[in-house]
């Protein structure tokens, strides 16, 4: 039986028989989408890690000064806070970022040695530190980066601390963090008597009162007891603190740049690919193909290129994130978990960009007079 040529078969043969050009086009699209996947994935994973940091510790309310970054609250307010009837635990904490080595910086947390926030950590070796002692615990990612183990010492800002525990945190940020006794971090940061804020765990809501209502009542009671401070639900705090806002801005900025780069890259690749085929377009027009049919053929090819290029790009972006996740400079903030929405978004962008970018040169080519198109070199 003789070989049958279909419309889609024709499109497929055009791609398959020009393997080198198809491969180069796919590489162009793949690189553009890969950059988009990696940059956006990087920003979003930072944001997600930050959100998880709040939610994994079991904190219901964060009590802070008005400005989180510069929040500085007297630790002495702890007693007033603990006397608020709805509060089960109210633990002071300091949050900071510090250079551990010239190449590595890390989040620093100062906690009391009986803080409930230890509940979210799993110790792989050693255990908690003791208040008043120059002891620290390290997240396992950071310990690996620094090549440290329990019993080793670490110099921070001119002071020496003994590592008494290595833990796995609920988030990448924690796993790349240093946690030390509150008093030690106060001393190290020259913040004696001051804390960043208090993390509060509430008593269970009374029967008949909704969780939302109870949370709002607790907020009001805390703010009445400590005028001038903000009591914010942890979820709000996680979503709205300045680090997350910054992460959002980074995500938006990098996404826009990556997207623009991607679309321009795809547009260029597709435009060149269609432009080179002007004579073929002329042949099809000369043998009776209508302009829309030629356009459809090129768009089917563009869609296939966009889809396959998008898949390659996702693979390339994921590999880049995986590489970043192994580098000490970025390991604590990069996760290789790409959310499905981001993947669908990337694939959609690849296909749409291919279609849009291919549309103009294809339209132009298909609307040239066949003679003009045939004369094209």
């Amino acid at each position, binding site marked *: *039986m*003789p*070989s*049958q*040529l*279909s*419309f889609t078969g*024709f499109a497929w*043969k*055009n791609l*398959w*028989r*020009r393997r080198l050009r198809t491969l180069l086009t796919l590489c162009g699209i793949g690189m553009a989408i890969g950059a988009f996947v990696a940059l956006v994935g990087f920003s979003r994973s930072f944001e997600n890690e930050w959100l998880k940091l709040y939610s994994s510790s079991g904190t219901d309310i964060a009590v802070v000064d008005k400005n989180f970054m510069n929040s500085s609250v007297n630790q002495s307010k702890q007693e007033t806070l603990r006397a608020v009837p709805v509060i089960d635990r109210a633990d002071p904490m300091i949050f900071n970022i510090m250079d551990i080595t010239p190449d590595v910086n890390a989040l620093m947390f100062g906690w009391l040695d009986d803080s409930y926030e230890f509940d979210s950590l799993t110790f792989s070796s050693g255990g908690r530190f003791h208040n008043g002692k120059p002891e620290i615990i390290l997240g396992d990612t950071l310990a690996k980066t620094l090549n440290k183990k329990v019993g080793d010492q670490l110099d921070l800002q001119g002071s020496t601390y003994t590592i008494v525990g290595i833990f796995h945190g609920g988030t990448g940020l924690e796993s790349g963090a240093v946690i030390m006794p509150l008093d030690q971090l106060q001393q190290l940061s020259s913040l004696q008597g001051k804390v960043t804020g208090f993390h509060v765990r509430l008593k269970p809501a009374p029967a008949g009162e909704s969780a939302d209502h109870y949370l709002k009542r607790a907020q009001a009671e805390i703010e009445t007891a400590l005028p001038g401070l903000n009591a914010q639900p942890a979820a709000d705090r996680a979503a709205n603190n300045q680090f997350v806002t910054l992460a959002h801005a980074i995500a938006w900025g990098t996404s826009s740049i990556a997207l623009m780069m991607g679309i321009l890259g795809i547009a260029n690749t597709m435009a060149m690919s269609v432009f080179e085929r002007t*004579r*073929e377009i002329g*042949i*099809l*027009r*000369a*043998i*009776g*193909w*209508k*302009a829309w*049919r030629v356009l459809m053929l090129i768009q089917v090819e563009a869609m296939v290129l966009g889809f396959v290029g998008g898949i390659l790009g996702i693979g390339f972006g994921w590999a880049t994130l995986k590489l970043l996740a192994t580098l000490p400079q970025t390991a604590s903030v990069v996760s290789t978990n790409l959310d499905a929405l981001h993947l669908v978004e990337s694939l959609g962008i690849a296909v749409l960009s291919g279609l849009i970018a291919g549309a103009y040169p294809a339209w132009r080519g298909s609307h040239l*007079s*066949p*003679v003009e198109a*045939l004369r094209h070199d």
Partner: protein
Amino acid sequence: MTNPQLEVRNLRKSYDEGRIEALRGVSLTINAGEYVAISGASGSGKSTLLHLLGGLDVATSGEVLFENAILGTAVNLDEYRANRIGFIFQAFYLLPTLRAIDNVQVPMLAINENASSRADRAESLLREMGLDHRLNQYPNELSAGERQRVAIARALANNPTILLADEPTGNLDSVNSARIMEILTGIQEKRGMTLIIVTHENDIANAAPRHIRIRDGRIES
């Protein structure tokens, strides 16, 4: 009794904003089933005339009528090229990504003929061209003569009533030239098609029952 199939009325075609005049008022009539050769020196306007007759291009002024209907107005050019015209070019213009049999099926995609009859017809046309053993070759695997025979099969794919050939032997040696001309005249006789050949070769032009000479965009004789 004559049966005018194509009529050309005072046809003009200029390029480069009127600076180059390829055709300067050509008028002629071609009857159905006629075999016509158009000859002239390079740049005389013979190919331009063929392109306008085939609806590949539009005139600057004047009209081309197919069966008394004006091309581009009463007759849609895409449909005219798909259903009525078969083109053969000097440079063959086969699609390099497709095998011979697929190349012949491409025009049939434009008229939505069903897949199995497309393939059967393409195979039968290639057999008619003596290419039974070359059905699955790509153009770059074929000789120049074979490529032109595939191009002829492609031109016949949609059963056109007019065959237009622009220097069909221009890229061929004498043996293949003779073979191609034998095929074209055979088709014209067997199918009763109109055959219009543009050529600069006197032997070919003089062999045609009607010979139109073009010089500087005008019909000389």
